[in-house]
């Protein structure tokens, strides 16, 4: 056995695979444990030998960036073994049993900006921020995940693709085909997530790329040349109709002035005028009352509570490894999770109490 094979075998022995939890285009995801500590991890087994161009670009991107980024608000990568997280922000938003306090939203958005600021400080654009890529650890810590579309910021004058970011979170410059862009694209996504946290429903749910522009302009008003100089010169610019500007206040009736100001600065049409992640961290919203909720006080889904209980049981020596896993997080596209979290709606807390329930479905 040569050195690399041996090192690899040693590394493999550090982890045990418990069960398969999902499968994406380029990887199969298992839930497993670190042998030495029992710490729960997600193991991504990259598929090799089925793509005609070798290792998949998304896999390469994800691995490349996660190897470099170590931060409390970025998912931790231990050599294709990722920390296992119980839930994500999308599930939390959709869980109708949970009530969000303004302080909770503030805490989530603060953690999102903190993780994003770290990426941007490392010259990395995430390019796929959305609630289900913001994972939540059992202690409540929010972590940026899924770096399959991430890339280094290009030098001025180098084109990047505009086919990035899930449509509802995609900024208008990308919809207009801009090939030169920067950190502003991620900030727009955070703005959409911020709005979604307050509304508990996606803020700009366009049905097609064209409809996305219309939906955006309907909500925020059609940009003028003064709002956004030069936007009519973008490659795919098309006029999509004139919509008046309605103050954010009309839709976000309960939000504080600071919150609306930050939201408005994230959803600014002119990308260069959008707030940066760094500036956002010092925005008065975060220092005004109410202060962001403590991690332990953040709303938790039933699956998180179940996971936390299990951790407790393990501490007490009552390890039940065959117990149903927490809600699954698989590689994108992850319709599985959509299905599961969809099922949760309207099922309310009963799910937590009625353990026979899973057996009755399909």
């Amino acid at each position: 056995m040569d050195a690399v094979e041996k090192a690899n075998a040693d590394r493999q022995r550090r982890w045990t695979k418990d069960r398969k939890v999902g499968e994406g285009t380029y990887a199969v995801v298992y839930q497993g444990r670190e042998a030495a500590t029992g710490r729960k991890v997600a193991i991504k087994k990259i598929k090799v030998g089925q793509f005609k161009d070798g290792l998949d670009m998304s896999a390469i991107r994800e691995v490349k960036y996660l190897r470099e980024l170590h931060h409390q608000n970025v998912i931790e990568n231990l050599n294709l073994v990722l920390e296992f997280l119980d839930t994500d922000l999308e599930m939390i938003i959709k869980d109708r049993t949970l009530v969000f306090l303004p302080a909770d939203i503030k805490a989530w958005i603060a953690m999102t900006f903190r993780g994003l600021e770290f990426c941007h400080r490392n010259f990395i654009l995430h390019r796929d921020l959305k609630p289900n890529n913001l994972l939540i650890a059992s202690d409540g810590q929010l972590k940026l995940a899924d770096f399959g579309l991430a890339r280094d910021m290009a030098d001025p004058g180098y084109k990047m693709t505009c086919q990035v970011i899930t449509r509802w979170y995609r900024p208008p410059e990308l919809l207009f085909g801009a090939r030169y862009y920067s950190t502003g694209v991620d900030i727009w996504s955070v703005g959409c997530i911020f709005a979604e946290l307050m509304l508990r429903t996606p803020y700009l749910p366009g049905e097609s790329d064209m409809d996305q522009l219309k939906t955006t302009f309907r909500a925020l008003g059609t940009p003028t040349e003064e709002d956004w100089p030069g936007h009519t010169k973008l490659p795919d610019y098309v006029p999509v109709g004139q919509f008046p500007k309605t103050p954010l206040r009309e839709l976000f009736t309960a939000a504080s002035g600071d919150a609306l100001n930050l939201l408005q600065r994230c959803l600014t049409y002119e990308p260069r005028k959008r707030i940066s992640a760094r500036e956002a961290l010092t925005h008065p919203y975060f220092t005004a009352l109410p202060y962001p909720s403590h991690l332990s006080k953040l709303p938790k889904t039933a699956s998180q509570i179940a996971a936390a209980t299990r951790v407790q049981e393990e501490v007490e020596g009552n390890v039940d490894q065959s117990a149903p896993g927490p809600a699954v997080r698989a590689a994108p596209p992850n319709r599985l999770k959509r299905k599961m979290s969809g099922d949760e709606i309207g099922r309310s807390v009963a799910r937590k109490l009625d353990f026979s329930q899973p057996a009755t479905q399909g």
Partner: protein
Amino acid sequence: MIMAVETLPSTPPQSDGQSSSKKPIYEGSTQFRNWRFSAAQLHATRTSLNAGAVAAIRHTFEANSPGSSSDIQFLTAEEEILLVKLYVTKITQLCGHFRFPEEVEATAVSYLKRFYLKNTVMDWHPKNVMLTALFLATKTTNHPISLEAYTSNIPRTAPSDVLDLEFLVAQSLAFEFAIWHVHRALWGLWLDLQDLPDPPSTEKLQQCYDTALQHVRTSRMTDADLIYTPSQIALACMSLADADLAARWARSKDAEAALDIIESIKDLIKGDGTVPSVEVVREIDRRLRLCKNPEKVVGSKAYLAKKEQDEKDAEMKRAKKADLTRKAMEESDPFGTELSTEAQNIAELDEDD
């Protein structure tokens, strides 16, 4: 935004295990943490890799036909380096041919050099490793081209020459694909120089930058990037082009201590930056044909034996697993495992999505 050149000289890493946002970005990189060595460490690594490979290959030869290894002249660690160096120059040629940007070239060279800190040329010949490293670099730096277009433009190369090694190369790099480049640091230096009070004329600056960039390219032939930070090497290259200008830059940044460090880098570039002579390398390559690991030569007796053994091992593993599964099925309460089976089923449904 302009990427600033890191402050010189760099301080040793603080192994507090904590991710601190205060330390320079570079010190959080895998390059800083896992791919920087002293010259002595590099030497020790290569010598022990070489010795290990010689012992293993000798063993394989003897197992096949006793006494057959006695008159084989195995490569020394130094000879291995020369061969790798030659293939570094091939990367440059190929990049010129494909018109790949400098980032691709520099990345591929780093991959090739890092690969041979984990493997020896007697196991894996640098020709295909070089082709694979370059192809991987096009993907990791966001300049992907199709494998078809890649291999059809390189004589006597099939897609499998690249694909077969891709995972091995990625794994040898520990999937640490991000490289901090010297030419980027030099670009930062050049931007800084234009900001000096009383800057030199534009022509002079341009000339100095062009010369320094040539030195950067030469430095890729050496171990410099495995020992020093990109900004240290960039400053050394600048100093080779115009020592006075480099010193002025250092003074403007209160980093005069760096000027001492760069002297040894300058020596390294001047001493080791030469392309090995074709005759010497050809002779090494001729001997390599006789001493390369037969287990890695497709079709050889040893290769087939190894493959058979691997398959046997895999079969045993599968049998063991099937056995365990069956046992688990027989022993478990049919009513007790419903929940986990359910979760499993859901997880598997997702495969078709």
